[in-house]
């Protein structure tokens, strides 16, 4: 019975990683860049929801909508100002370093505006959740909703990418930017759209992250962002279903290693997994092997 409880706890942590990893992997899959500021977009989303809810005396739904809109704008702006000019840079490192810079910029601006004190986030999910075996086993409402939302996003993204013209354009850009341009695809616009979607997902992930773990500070997004990155790599970075699986596996591994091995070693184990995956199967669980053509 207690094993089941721990498994469910792992599931709820994993579902959060999964929903963050979706945004990560989406941007990587198309734009081929790691947006290390993704975790901080999440934090920005949380602060927007928190502020709007406070201003509208607890109306979190409006908060989420506004957060999605503003995060989308933030994503587009960041891409336009910080990433686009570097896309042609000689080293792919330039844009990676810039992403880290954006991450610190966002954290410190939040620190300036909201201060270092933590704020307690009111859950946007009012539902208590499911209860089994006479209350012995509980699955929190936020866990169920997070998994459902992740699935909906997963399906919607798959449909969008595979069935729409814009989605096909994204695939083309992902495959070969030069060739896509020759085919009449506006690469800049396509990548901007990718960032818009990724950042909107960050706002939704933020709402769920802070509902599950209701403590909001400028560094709220940093660590979950990095863990979600590990999850994305584990699942196969660039693969949307892979991010979902990677997130769930990572959450369960983290909780079970905390439980049965050591509460202090769990992070070492989680990041150890990253190393092992990169050594054994660098493309991750669902990642595609891309053949270099000569």
């Amino acid at each position, binding site marked *: 019975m207690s094993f089941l409880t721990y498994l469910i706890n792992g599931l709820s942590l994993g579902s959060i990683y999964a929903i963050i990893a979706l945004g990560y992997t989406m941007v990587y899959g198309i734009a081929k860049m790691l947006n290390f500021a993704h975790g901080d977009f999440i934090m920005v989303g949380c602060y927007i929801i928190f502020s709007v809810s406070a201003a509208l005396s607890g109306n979190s739904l409006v908060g989420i909508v506004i957060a999605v809109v503003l995060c989308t704008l933030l994503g587009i702006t960041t891409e336009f100002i910080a990433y686009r000019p570097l896309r042609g840079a000689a080293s792919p490192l330039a844009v990676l370093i810039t992403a880290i810079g954006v991450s610190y910029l966002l954290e410190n601006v939040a620190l300036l505006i909201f201060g270092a*004190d933590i704020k307690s986030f009111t859950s946007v999910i009012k539902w208590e959740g499911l209860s089994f075996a006479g209350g012995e086993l509980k699955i929190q409402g936020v866990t169920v909703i997070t998994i459902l939302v992740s699935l909906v996003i997963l399906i919607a993204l798959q449909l969008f990418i595979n069935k729409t013209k814009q989605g096909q354009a994204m695939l083309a850009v992902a495959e070969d930017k030069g060739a896509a341009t020759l085919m009449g695809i506006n690469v800049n616009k396509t990548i901007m759209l990718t960032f818009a979607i990724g950042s909107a997902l960050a706002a939704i992930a933020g709402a769920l992250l802070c509902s599950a773990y209701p403590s909001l500070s400028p560094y709220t997004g940093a660590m*979950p962002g990095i863990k979600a990155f590990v999850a994305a790599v584990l699942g196969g970075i660039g693969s949307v279903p892979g991010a979902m699986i990677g997130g769930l596996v990572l959450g369960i591994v983290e909780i079970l290693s905390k439980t049965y091995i050591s509460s202090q070693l769990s992070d070492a184990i989680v990041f150890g997994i990253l190393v092992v995956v990169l050594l054994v199967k660098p493309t991750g669980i669902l990642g595609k092997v891309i053949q270099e053509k000569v």
Partner: protein
Amino acid sequence: MKKFKKVISSLMASALVVSMLAGCTDAASTETTDAQAQPAQEASSSSDNGATFKIGAIGPLTGGAAAYGNAVCNAAELAVEDINAAGGINGYQVEYNKEDDELNAEKSVNAYNTLKDWGMQILVGSTTSACSIAVSEYTKADNMFQLTPSGSAEECVTYDNVFRVCFSDPNQGIASAQYIADHNLATKIGIIYDSSDVYSNGIYQKFAEEAKNKNLEIVSAEAFTQDNNTDFSVQLQKAKDAGADLVFLPIYYKDASLILTQANTMGYAPTFFGVDGMDGILTVENFDTKLAEGVMLLTPFAADATDDLTVNFVKKYEEKYGETPNQFAADAYDAVFIIKQAIEAKGATPDMSTADLCEALKTAMTEIEAAGLTSSKMTWDASGEPNKEPKAVVIKDGAYVSAE
């Protein structure tokens, strides 16, 4: 890592507040002969030369930790006024001065030098640990007596001229175990601590040692780190499965607020017992204070206590400064009265040199038994650590109430 920095800075802040209260008498040379001392005493009793003890205090009066520094400096001022109104120390009036250190160790040293130029003989401070440690290098060199009300880091009292009023960080672990055992709060105890933080780790170690002596059974001791402080479900579940009826939280209120929320979600309601890092849990923005109902924390002072000393102090403090005094204020008020008692024990006079006064007070501190707001019986040994009965408060209806 960043959180760690924040924690450090708040620790530093609290340390600063502490060091403000000690001053050293800067009277005539220490090697005064009887003949010299005699006239001085006569003079002062006839109030001719107007000799006074000069006590200075240092703390962060501006900036993020201003609440601590102002509490210390205000309470020290109040204590000096009370002493003067009652005829002073050994018949000599006391002069008081304070300086701002902005929670910065270098500025704390500057503040100390400014006070020394003014003629300070005894220092009460600094308020926070890091500043107190910085200043103690200078008081040691000058051999000036320093009593920090609230510098809780172990290193604050490294030198023999420095004493403190509050418990040191690790000693809060011992005090908590004693309190829990003496009041039969629990038989099975779970602990959740931050293994990446010196403060939390130190308290945990001492608590575990003392719990063994007191026959308290620790059924689960689970750690977390600053990089892994969002999900506490495992730590709580383990405590619950082990049947812990009290969970000891030697951590800061930031992490504690998440633990309380998650315990509530999983329907686990043991007694939660914290230390001074828990102080602030009620100030978390948007936090549902109902979740903190029944949480206990070790603190030397509760403003609602009904003994005459506390009632008078709180009333006077509120009248003069318009706010309810906190534990920093209580520590500082006690510090000034402890200095008074130590001076009286040795019959010291303001015309003694700072160093002589320091030597006299160092000995006096190990001999006196003080009573004050923070304890009815405080003694010190030469290490500078206080020995006193631990006190705790419980959160009731969103406010601290004495647990007694």
